[in-house]
């Protein structure tokens, strides 16, 4: 369906993306996860035909997009990161305009607009000027504008930036509905929870390079630990977490702000030994819990840096 093969793009000496490859099939949602400046938007721009790669190719159903007016562009819908709407026009006028860009007019356009507004829950605000909309409503309309020509591939460049949790949830529901219709979604984000919720596969990009490409389960397998035991210590004076690495069950140990985080492969086998060691060493604690590692941990493991700090 969509294949990105060894695509590289540079701006002068800056390599924005370096030999990026992945593929997306019908009905799949691919998450492009990475910190700001990782190369996600450049990758999306290359797929949408806004940029030409220095090398490599982007194939839509086996064909390259060769010109500005290539019909293959009809298969793509772009939801840009920045709001792509005219505030001074009504929602309906905006959608009428974007429909006409794909030569949709008359009854076909009206039907497409009605369906898109219905999907994003803005039918009752169709006649209002976009300038009067909340940030969340604008984001939903931004999504609707990309759906009018019924594209098979939807490129979503951080579509939830700056929206409230309720609107974010509404957008997720819209995307899940589209996924059920068999649309291919390419979703860029630096929010791991979004990628975890929506994506079938996750491509992690850092400094323009793909550093991992797998399902969520597959990515978890790359981790040295499958569970983290979180222990809140009463006192941390003189405590040295690296001493715990001597225990066979312990794969990692880190102390921060009175909280000890210990990585283990097997929670049942590891927890008793760790708690016993703490008691023997005279370190008391007042709370113990366990966590599943998430994409943040994956990114940290792969790059040595936190996703949000990058």
């Amino acid at each position: 369906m969509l294949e990105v093969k060894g695509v590289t793009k540079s701006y002068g000496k800056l390599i924005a993306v370096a030999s990026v490859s992945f593929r997306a099939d019908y009905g799949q949602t691919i998450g492009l996860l990475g910190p700001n400046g990782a190369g996600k938007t450049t990758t999306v721009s290359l797929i949408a035909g806004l940029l030409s790669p220095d090398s490599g190719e982007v194939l839509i159903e086996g064909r390259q997009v060769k010109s500005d007016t290539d019909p293959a562009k009809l298969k793509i819908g772009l939801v840009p990161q920045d709001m792509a709407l005219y505030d001074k026009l009504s929602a309906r006028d905006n959608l009428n305009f974007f429909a006409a860009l794909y030569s949709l007019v008359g009854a076909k356009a009206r039907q497409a607009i009605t369906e898109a507004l219905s999907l994003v829950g803005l039918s009752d605000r169709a006649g209002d000027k976009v300038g009067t909309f909340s940030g969340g409503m604008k984001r939903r309309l931004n999504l609707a504008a990309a759906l009018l020509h019924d594209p098979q591939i939807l490129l979503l460049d951080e579509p939830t930036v700056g929206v409230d949790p309720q609107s974010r949830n509404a957008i997720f529901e819209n995307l899940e509905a589209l996924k059920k219709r068999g649309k291919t979604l390419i979703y860029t984000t630096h929010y791991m929870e979004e990628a975890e919720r929506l994506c079938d596969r996750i491509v992690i990009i850092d400094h323009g390079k793909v550093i991992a490409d797998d399902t969520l389960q597959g990515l978890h397998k790359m981790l040295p630990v499958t569970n983290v035991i979180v222990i809140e210590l009463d006192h941390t004076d003189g405590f040295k977490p690296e001493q715990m690495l001597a225990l066979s069950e312990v794969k990692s140990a880190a102390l921060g702000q009175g909280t000890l985080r210990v990585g283990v492969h097997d929670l049942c086998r590891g927890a008793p030994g760790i708690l016993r060691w703490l008691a023997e060493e005279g370190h008391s604690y007042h709370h113990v819990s366990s966590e599943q590692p998430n994409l943040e941990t994956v990114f940290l493991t792969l790059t040595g840096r936190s996703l949000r700090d990058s």
Partner: protein
Amino acid sequence: MIPFLALVRKDLKLFFNDRRAVIVSILVPIVLASFFGYLFGGQGGNAETSKVPVLVIDQDGSDISRGLITQLGSDKNLDVKPSTLEAGREAVRKGKATAAIVIPKDFGTDAGHALFTGATKPELGVLYDPSHNVELGMVKGILSGAVMQAVSKEMFTGKSGREMVNESLAQVENSSQMPAENRKALRDLLGGVKEFNEQQDREGASGQGELSGGLSMPYQTREQAITSGQNVEYNGYAHSFGGMGIQFILFMGLDVGIALLMLRQSGLWQRLRAAPLSRTMLLGSRAVSASLIAGFLLLVLFGFARVVFGVHIRGSFAGFLGVCAAFSLMTAAFGLMVAALGETVEATRGYSIMATLIMVMLGGAWVPTFIFPKWLQKLTVIIPTRWAMDGLDGMTWRGLGFSSALAPIAVLLLFTLLFGLIAVMRFRWRTEG
């Protein structure tokens, strides 16, 4: 075609939806054009102009100097007031007077002698404000006429003149070296003058006649404004509405360019570029919508000028529409070129405002180009606004035919082509990643 029309319609909708901006786009040029039109002649060119303030410092106090002041004061273009040297200098320095004329001591006597004998000419001091060079020329012209009239009047019929005739008669009689024929001729001439003066005195005393006024200008001028036809008066609003229209429409074109520059950095640009639209369509639609808006503004401005100030299209209406259309296209292409050459919005705004103002200024939209130096007048033929102004003037108050509009239309279209080519070639389509 559907996407192209949608792009044009959207631009027009955005412009006309912003009613405040539309009103400002129309109102501001109307206010300024009305003001400039009034200043530069108004309807019929009969607006009363203000007099040039001139101070006179009379250090002579002779009949001639008093006569000179009277002559100057009678001129309708001057507002003459007496002053002292210090006060006059200060008033000119502060810009309260355009010039101060200093009549030195013995000016009357010296000027009289210089008139007949070619003796050393006395100097009239003229202190002037260098920012009023044009008025200075006029003041000097009026001063020359007034001096000739005052001095000749006194020398032919005044007391000083009679004394000089008597002195000269005595010199002639006593001259031993002068040939007899010459002596006789001069005696007859001066005697005739003396007798004429005495007769004037007798007629003046009995109230039978008036004293002679001395030398005066031996001609009069009959001024006739050449406009579109006989009895059609010049309407200054025709030029000012053309000039201000051109200026503000160029600014509108500039806004189109800046908006395009800003659009290129926005998500909207990505969405437009993601659609199957050619680059020509994206830029072309913008050019067409900007041209339509420019044409609309020009027509509204001239419509207002027609209704309120009686500005008529005295020449070819088709030529007028042609010039408006060509200028509108040129404006749109200029806007696209600004967008193509611009780097950042702020920097582009700065240099393009400067370029626009230079085009407007050199095009004669503010002041007529005839006051420019010769070399600058020649240079203005490469300024598109000059052609637009010439075209609009020609089709409005000059009342010229369609053939006179052809050159401005052709040149404006050439500029459109040039700017459009630069825009297409230099426009950066890249979207930053």
